């Protein structure tokens, strides 16, 4: 049976790493996702996802040198490996095939019928 696809947030993190290239570490990944999607990201959720992606073998993390900023603490840089690129491509193809023939549009909220409203004939 084929493997399940990565979740939505995992894909966002993979795409952010891909976009950032050599500058992908916790803060830049979080800011990239927040600025592009408008979605608030917590550090805890981000590192849980990064750890899972690393365990799946999609990304690889490496500790950088300490810098005077950030309270003198080092950054952990992430880069995507081949398995990650393949996974992203697979997820993208699956989504594209599901969207094929559909026109994305904003769903209109269903009008709630009042209990007193008469039924239409």
């Amino acid at each position: 049976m084929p493997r399940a696809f990565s979740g939505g947030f995992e894909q966002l993190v993979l795409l952010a790493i891909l976009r950032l290239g050599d500058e992908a570490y916790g803060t830049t990944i979080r800011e990239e996702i927040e600025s592009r999607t408008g979605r608030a990201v917590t550090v805890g959720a981000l590192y849980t996802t990064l750890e899972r992606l690393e365990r799946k073998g999609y990304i690889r993390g490496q500790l950088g040198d300490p810098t005077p900023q950030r309270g003198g603490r080092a950054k952990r840089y992430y880069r995507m490996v081949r398995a990650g690129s393949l996974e992203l491509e697979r997820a993208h193809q699956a989504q594209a095939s599901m969207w094929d023939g559909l026109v994305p549009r904003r769903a209109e909220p269903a009008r709630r019928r009042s209990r007193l409203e008469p039924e239409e004939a």
Partner: protein
Amino acid sequence: MSAPPRLAAWIACHSLAPHEREYVLGDLHEGFDGQAETHGARAAARWYTAQVCRSSFPNMARRARTAWRSPLHRDHDPLQTSPPRRPGDRMFVSVLHDVRFGIRLLARQPARSLLLILTLALGIGVNAALFTLVNTVLLRPLPYPDPDRVVRIWDRDESRGLLYFSVSIPHYFAWRDSTRSFSAIGAYREDGFTLARADGPAAINGVRMTASLFAVLGVAPALGRPFAADEDRAGGPLAVVVTHEFWRRELQANPAIVGQAVSIDGQSHTIVGVMPASFRFPQQDRVELLVPQRLARGVEDDGSHFLRVLARIRPDTAFAAARDDLTRAAAQYRAAGSSHDRGWSVVTWPLHVAMVGEVRDTLIRLQGACLLVLLIAAVNVANLLVVRAAGRSREIAVRAALGASTMRLVRQLLTESLVIAVIGGSPASRSRGRCSAWRRPGCRSRSRASPISPWIARSSCGASRSRS
């Protein structure tokens, strides 16, 4: 450059696995600095605290997973395939083992465990629910600046059994003019208004109040201004101040609404102000319109008592001195007054006493009874745990013989008790919905904002842990 809040930084540090601390804390620090630069130090502290609060659970879950997955003696792992286990991790894993063992013990004897948990849940739940109510109604200050200085004043006629009676207009003017202990005295009365809307008239609750009542309560409109002096006098322009709720619902939260007219009781009133969202009128629920109460001297006679009077005591005056001043002013007025004043005196109490006076004693007695229930529950739980411990003497002896130190054994038993306390205490948080329905009149926001204080839940759970 400001530093992140210390408590939040401490929590962040200890929720993370040691090998993650370097870069995750660095990221949090960098985010804090960025927020401080763009939004200021206070916003940065809020951002940092929110991040830590929302990240602590995922951090601890990640730490537990990593520690759980690694072999027991990672320090001696010759291949060093994962980060070496440090003393903090070792402790974390052993606590996790104890938690797992505690849950297994509970599952092994379901009937006894259920009894333990139900007893604790009942004791803690009732206590937490009632204390939330007591805290909201009795302990928290009213939502006005210096609330202890605000007093309520009544007329009293003991011969007719009228102990706390509304005030007449001449009495209000007499007290306002001949006392020196109050920085402001104001009066109001509740009233219903008819608002002309596009889809027909609507009944709206409100009050008619003197302009001085804003100063008494220490509140001011968030938009616009309070009533001007001429709006407070008979014959002056018609004005209205609306509450935030009314502004949002009826005026579509229009920020330029001040100065526009609205038809109330068939007359056009100018909207001069919008109160802040946090404002609640004392002792009145669902007040949405504040309209000037235009009082005129000598129009109504002494027999008409319909005003509710509030006053703010000067900062340099004690309550007893203010009460004596008021009593003196009332006696002086009575001596020179008309036949209507025979028998009338004055009585005053701080506003918070006036609001909770009738229920205060009942609540305190009820809280005492609930504490006794908690005590009985605690004794029962302690007895059940003693019985359980007696049956485990052999297991503990084996553990000690295998080399477990006293500290280790004590920690294990405490962790097991903690598991019971957490399971038994968790229903307490459910009680908040029930008690938030009870609230002090006119102060809805207080109970809604914090139905159950975190420290109440914490102290209740702490109590259950210490006794088990």
